[in-house]
């Protein structure tokens, strides 16, 4: 449907379609990058997916790719593809905020390893995307710079914390996106925006240059319009990095050449705890149940299973993640980088007021919660217990993967919810992550892939693999995607040369009221 806006035919392609056009000489990286930048200009007043658009650098990088191609140099499969980079990965000389006012003017002196790998692959970074502050949130409303809107319905959230990258890919502002997933922050926005998002095995992708939230949970991963694009991007960014001591030495498996082998004979477990009797929208359940049937029709053997520890995963996560965050965010003290308040009476006064002014409500809430959970007299009751739950989740998953190749369930309990609906109710916001956090606690891999629409909004299917099981997982996701043939795109209209997106179920005229 997204054929009305300027440049959409190019910016709306998958990475694979783009590579074919480059190979046939039908387009150039400069043309594609220009189309993506046009698209950002036409849509981002409304969507606010980007915090910084790096147009000059992007066009220079695109020219370099085109020249390399003309010289006949060997180029990777993603060379010339425009990418939306979550503003939590540091970029040398380019403002990097992590969605926080405390880092509003931060220009890092180095590139993250992921950024260096993207550049080596010839990927064109078109800008840095909006996010919940320090990746804490599930709606992108916790950004210090205002929320991102969902391209399917701009009165709704895109999910979070990687909501900017997900919205950018869904709206055709970029072909690919990079997000980070600490408790679901790639999978949940992918689900809400109708695209593919992978949370890789912990340690598969370097965290060097990733602004830390919860170090034992954070993992960088790809967002794309299709499974092949996500797999190709993951291959480009994965691999051991001596600069990250948690980076795993195993050479990442080939994730793309076996994609088309199908699910015949695959053993898939339908996790009872991911299909609770309450709290999940019927439309989400219907799409996911249809998806499970589809996998079965395609030749997978699906059986029910139970992982009882999943019931405790969310509560454990919301102790572990804030505890690690409270420690990681101690570095924002107004000394080495970022904001510093003026006229402080002494150094402690400077630190306390700098942090009070620079951090938003959710970040303060989590620092408070984490500091409390780690403080004398509470450490074992809260943090220690949460770490024991983590062991139980690991054991449950280990047992399940003796019987199954993959586990399956919804990515998140609801479709995209309205802006403002949960932002003042932390517990209801945290429930967005109830199906995604167990994987972060255990460090294994999972993907969200579009499973159709409910009430006109995308639903995501979550496939969960053991650690380093990405190849099998993406194979199943690809088979599902191909068979379903999900091709829906956000509906659009043009007003005053700006591409706008019709709110779900409403008349296009209602759009003017939601313009920022």
């Amino acid at each position, binding site marked *: 449907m997204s054929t009305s806006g300027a440049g959409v035919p190019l910016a709306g392609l998958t990475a694979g379609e783009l590579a074919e056009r480059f190979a046939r000489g039908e387009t150039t990286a400069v043309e594609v990058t220009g189309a993506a930048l046009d698209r950002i200009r036409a849509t981002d007043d409304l969507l606010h997916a980007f915090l910084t658009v790096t147009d000059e650098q992007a066009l220079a990088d695109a020219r370099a790719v085109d020249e390399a191609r003309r010289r006949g140099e060997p180029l990777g499969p993603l060379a010339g593809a425009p990418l939306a980079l979550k503003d939590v990965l540091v970029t040398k000389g380019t403002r990097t905020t992590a969605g926080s006012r405390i880092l509003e003017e*931060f220009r890092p002196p180095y590139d993250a390893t992921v950024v260096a790998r993207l550049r080596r692959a010839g990927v064109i970074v078109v800008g840095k995307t909006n996010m919940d502050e320090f990746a804490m949130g599930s709606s992108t409303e916790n950004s210090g710079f205002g929320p991102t809107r969902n391209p399917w319905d701009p009165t709704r959230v895109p999910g979070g914390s990687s909501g900017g990258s997900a919205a950018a890919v869904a709206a055709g502002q970029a072909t690919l996106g990079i997000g980070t997933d600490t408790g679901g922050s790639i999978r949940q926005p992918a689900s809400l925006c109708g695209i593919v998002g992978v949370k890789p*095995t912990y340690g598969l992708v370097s965290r060097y240059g990733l602004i830390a939230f919860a170090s034992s949970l954070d993992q960088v991963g790809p967002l794309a319009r299709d499974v092949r694009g996500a797999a190709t991007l993951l291959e480009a960014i994965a691999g051991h990095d001596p600069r990250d001591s948690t980076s795993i030495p195993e050479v990442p498996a080939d994730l793309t050449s076996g994609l088309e082998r199908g699910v015949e004979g695959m053993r898939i477990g339908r996790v009872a705890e991911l299909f609770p009797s309450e709290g999940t929208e019927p439309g989400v359940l219907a799409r996911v149940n249809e998806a499970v049937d589809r996998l079965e029709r395609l030749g997978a053997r699906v059986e029910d299973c139970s992982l009882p520890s999943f019931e405790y995963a969310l509560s454990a996560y919301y102790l572990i993640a804030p505890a690690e965050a409270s420690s990681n965010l101690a570095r924002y003290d107004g000394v080495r980088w970022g904001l510093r308040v003026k006229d402080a009476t*002494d*150094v402690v006064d400077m630190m306390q007021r700098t*942090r009070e002014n620079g951090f938003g409500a959710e970040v303060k809430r989590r620092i408070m919660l984490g*500091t409390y959970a780690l403080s004398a007299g509470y450490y074992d009751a809260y943090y220690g217990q949460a770490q024991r739950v983590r062991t139980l989740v690991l054991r449950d998953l280990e047992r399940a993967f003796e019987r199954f190749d993959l586990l399956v369930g919804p990515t998140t309990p609801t479709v995209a919810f309205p802006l403002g609906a949960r932002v003042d109710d932390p*517990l209801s916001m945290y429930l967005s992550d109830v199906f995604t956090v167990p994987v972060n606690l255990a460090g294994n891999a999972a993907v969200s892939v579009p499973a159709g629409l409910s009430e006109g909004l995308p639903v995501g299917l979550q496939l969960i693999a053991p650690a380093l099981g990405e190849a099998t997982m993406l194979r199943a996701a690809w088979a599902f995607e191909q068979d379903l043939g999900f091709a829906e795109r956000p509906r659009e209209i043009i007003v005053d040369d700006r591409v706008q997106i019709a709110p779900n179920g409403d008349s296009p005229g209602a759009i003017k009221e939601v313009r920022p």
Partner: protein
Amino acid sequence: MPISRADVQHVARLARLALTDEELDRFQSQLSLILDEAEKVKRLPTGGVPPTSHPLPRVNVWRDDTVGPCLTREEALSTAPEVEQDRFMVPRIIEEGA
């Protein structure tokens, strides 16, 4: 409520956050709700279950002790709010005459 206003003030001091009165009230009730939710983790019988601090345990990750490129002093200081004599500058730490 599992957490008192004095607790919230104490934690804010530990976390170096100069919270307003309004924030102290809001966080007292919100943290109490979240900690109520954490009760089910707190009460879970976990006797004999070891804690997991890291999903894929690695022990002693070594690398060769070789010199590689690193940031220059100017680069490292380039992000600081205030710099003096090639050092990070901070407000007074020690009382005068101390």
